[in-house]
């Protein structure tokens, strides 16, 4: 495993282009585009203000930079550096900006969710969509980029509109049986739309592309409900994480719950492997599980090493006592992610913040639990294989695969606190982001690990 040198970064804005060739990162009001392989700067654009949001267009030709404070969006072309485009939302303000899947339209949401403006880069035309709902996840595009679903609120009722992205024609418009819709999400196959209600009520509805209600699911009443939702890449399963600390898996044929994953603080099943991160001073770390330590030239050795120990069941995990009289209590399943092959599901229970749970979807049981020394910030699956990267805001990167676990110290002067990470398309590298720096991590041992995974896990 190799690490690149450290580059400057602000606001954690660093993104690989969808084609995997470029890497865009922001430093204050400058946008830097680098080549992924050489890390040489290809382009450098200067925006009008501090960039708050960047997004690559689907064809990797354009990048939009949003400056919400100024109500501005600037678009840059990679092929024509001199080309520029500036969209000003004026006094209406701006709270969100995103590309349409074709990469030629930009959807800007004005302040107070008054409307969504659709700006075209091809024609002068400007379209407006009124009554967008102010919610967590109100816009979702199908994976093929054909359709957009939009949550709306009119006359105290929730609606969903489905647009054809090619000409922004309204295809379907229907009201949903929700109190206060919170999120919508297309299934990866683009035929089913999951719609879930506010956290005050456990309710998830499934609509077909043509607006028919396929099914409704509610696990319980009178308690805080859904916290997170994730589709499996195969569109076969819908995982619903809720405030009661459980993940419920719905099946795509019957839309009924097939299993329920509880996240208890003690793990008793002897089949589950529990990895516990343990800190050790380097002198003592003889048989450590961690990856071959970074090359001597890469940086000074860390003062302490961490490694994973396999704890024997029963294991009790560190729990957080939630403050129940405040909004957004730290309980329930806050993070959910399926592995790209749909074989594994990684979850985090917010009142056991140090642990990542990995579930085997084939056998519908708990596969492994990783308990870190500090709360888990983010985890993300390798897009190519069942391999999970985890960061905890410390200077280490953690990787899990069915074959095992490892923790890697990020080299560099001082501590490189990894706050976020994102995988490269190929799964060969990833960007590690700290508060004001980022570096790339190259997993050259990928082949070895990969084969090991395949042999052990029997997947792919």
């Amino acid at each position, binding site marked *: 495993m190799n690490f690149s040198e450290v580059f400057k970064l602000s606001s954690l804005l660093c993104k690989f282009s969808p084609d995997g060739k470029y890497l865009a990162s922001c430093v204050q009001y400058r946008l830097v585009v680098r080549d992924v392989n050489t890390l040489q700067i290809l382009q450098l654009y200067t925006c009008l203000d501090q960039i708050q949001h960047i997004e690559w267009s*689907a*064809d990797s030709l354009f990048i939009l930079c949003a400056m919400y404070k100024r109500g501005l969006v600037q678009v840059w*072309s990679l092929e024509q550096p*001199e*080309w*520029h*485009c*500036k*969209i*000003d*939302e*004026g*006094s*209406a303000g701006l709270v969100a900006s995103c590309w349409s899947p*074709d*990469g*030629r339209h930009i959807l800007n949401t*004005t302040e*107070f969710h*008054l*409307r969504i403006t659709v*700006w*075209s*880069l*091809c*024609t*002068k*035309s*400007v379209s407006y969509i009124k009554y967008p709902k102010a919610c967590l996840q109100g816009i979702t595009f199908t994976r093929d980029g*054909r*359709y957009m679903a939009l949550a709306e*609120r009119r*006359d*105290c009722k929730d609606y969903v509109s489905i647009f*054809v992205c090619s*000409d922004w*024609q309204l*295809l379907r418009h229907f009201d949903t049986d929700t*109190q*206060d819709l919170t999120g919508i999400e297309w299934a990866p*196959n*683009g*035929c089913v739309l999951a719609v879930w209600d506010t956290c005050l009520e456990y309710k998830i509805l499934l609509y*077909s*592309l*043509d607006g028919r209600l396929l099914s409704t699911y509610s696990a319980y009443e*009178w308690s805080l409900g859904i916290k997170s939702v994730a589709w499996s890449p195969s569109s076969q399963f819908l995982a619903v994480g809720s405030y009661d600390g459980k993940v419920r898996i719905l099946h795509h*044929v019957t839309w009924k719950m097939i299993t329920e994953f509880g996240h208890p603080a003690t793990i008793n099943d002897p089949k589950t492997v529990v990895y516990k991160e343990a800190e050790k001073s380097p002198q003592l770390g003889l048989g450590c599980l961690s990856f071959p330590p970074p090359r001597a030239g890469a940086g000074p050795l860390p003062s302490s090493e961490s490694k994973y120990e396999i704890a024997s069941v029963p294991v009790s995990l560190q729990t957080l006592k939630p403050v129940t009289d405040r909004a957004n209590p730290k309980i329930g399943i806050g993070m959910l992610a399926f592995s790209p092959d749909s074989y594994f599901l990684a979850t985090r229970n917010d009142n056991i913040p140090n642990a990542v749970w990995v579930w085997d979807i084939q056998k519908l049981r708990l596969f492994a639990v990783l308990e870190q020394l500090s709360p888990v910030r983010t985890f993300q699956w390798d897009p190519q294989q069942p391999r999970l990267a985890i960061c905890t805001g410390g200077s280490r990167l953690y990787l899990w695969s069915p074959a095992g676990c490892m923790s890697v110290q990020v080299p560099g002067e001082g501590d490189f606190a990894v706050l976020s990470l994102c995988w490269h398309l190929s799964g060969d590298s990833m960007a590690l982001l700290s508060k004001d720096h980022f570096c790339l991590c190259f997993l050259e041992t990928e082949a070895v690990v990969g084969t090991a995974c395949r042999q052990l896990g029997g997947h792919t």
Partner: protein
Amino acid sequence: MGDWMTVTDPGLSSESKTISQYTSETKMSPSSLYSQQVLCSSIPLSKNVHSFFSAFCTEDNIEQSISYLDQELTTFGFPSLYEESKGKETKRELNIVAVLNCMNELLVLQRKNLLAQENVETQNLKLGSDMDHLQSCYSKLKEQLETSRREMIGLQERDRQLQCKNRNLHQLLKNEKDEVQKLQNIIASRATQYNHDMKRKEREYNKLKERLHQLVMNKKDKKIAMDILNYVGRADGKRGSWRTGKTEARNEDEMYKILLNDYEYRQKQILMENAELKKVLQQMKKEMISLLSPQKKKPRERVDDSTGTVISDVEEDAGELSRESMWDLSCETVREQLTNSIRKQWRILKSHVEKLDNQVSKVHLEGFNDEDVISRQDHEQETEKLELEIQQCKEMIKTQQQLLQQLATACDDDTTSLLRDCYLLEEKERLKEEWSLFKEQKKNFERERRSFTEAAIRLGLERKAFEEERASWLKQQFLNMTTFDHQNSENVKLFSAFSGSSDWDNLIVHSRQPQKKPHSVSNGSPVCMSKLTKSLPASPSTSDFCQTRSCMSEHSSINVLNITAEEIKPNQVGGECTNQKWSVASRPGSQEGCYSGCSLSYTNSHVEKDDLP
């Protein structure tokens, strides 16, 4: 204790009496001076008595004393101290010998009395201590009683308190429940209120938004603009098209196309899954058939518990050819049939496996000494009856013996003793007769029992034959009835005929066995069947099949010959250990070994078959 005392020392009490008498008599003595003294020193006699006696007689009153003593002694039954008077006037002489004798006797008496006294004293002491002990016991028990009484009161109090507590808790629970109900109501009302408020707020918010929208959007905001160098081409290279009804329709079409594609894809997947499952099912079915078909010719006893199941085997065999086409039929028409047949087969398999399990466990338990032919019920009934009889006989014998003893003990008078002898002899003879009679009865019973077992064996065999007959008949019936598949009805008929013939073979084989059971009904039909098979215009494939079938049937007949012994076995499996005892006794051991060997090999072969893929 008092009892014991009186019984053990009857003499002692009389002695004491005499003493008291004696002392009272002393009062009447002439020397009444000393009577006081005597009374005072009545208990410590030992020394004072001597002094008393020394003072009793003086020089002056020798005569008087002697006569007094004489008088006294004679009243006590001693011989007189005087010699017997020869004449009336002659003065009676003192007989020294008598005096000495008397003295001696008195001394002995005295010693005895002392001893007795001592005994009485110790007795008294003992009794006193006993008394003390009993008193202490009594007091202790009294204390105990008191404490237990107190305890009881305490427990009662506690019970009362607990009940009180319980009542309170119940009350509390009720209150809590009420509270919960109330809270739930509150939650519900709050929820509705919240929703109402939210709606109100939202309306206001919407109004404001509308206002804002008008303010911000309606006046031409110069700032809202896009500053672009030049418009870029569309990603697909085409030009944007006007929005018309056509595009709308096209979009609709496309959407439905996508949906359709998705459904088709899903259907394909499901079909694939279905096909795979069908394949598995088919394979399993085949395996089941192959597993079950050789059996059905072997253990006929299966008919006992599942008369209908054997038929399905044959049906399966018959349906084999038509299977392939059946898979392609839509599910609805075949589903029921399929599930039924599979269920049947599964039941057979299950029962068979269970049987095998039983056998294995039985074999392990009992070793290899089981070979009775009779069905379990008969067996049990028979043994029960016989046991009852034996019990009765035993009881009779016992009562007789008791009577005998009573007779022997009852007449113990001297007068009857003479008569008793002759009576006894008579009785003895009669009893002997009875005894021999009983023995004979017993022997008869034994014989009867043996005959019963034999009869039962025969019965079992007969029953088996009958069962087979019934099975074959049912099979035919069923096969004739089954409209398995309309297009294959010919096949079915053919097969039923075949199966009939094969069964006929079996029957023939069975009829060779010793028992004579009329097969008139079944004998008639198979012949017809065989004729039918011959007369049928057989296509090449069916004729082939015919051959194989006949081969099979031959096989089966051989099997049947071999198996007759095995067939017995499941019955013994059911048999109880108690039943085994006499069956073993009634049969020679060599046979046992042979049979058990058979059953063993049988089970082994089936186990092997089960292991086959």
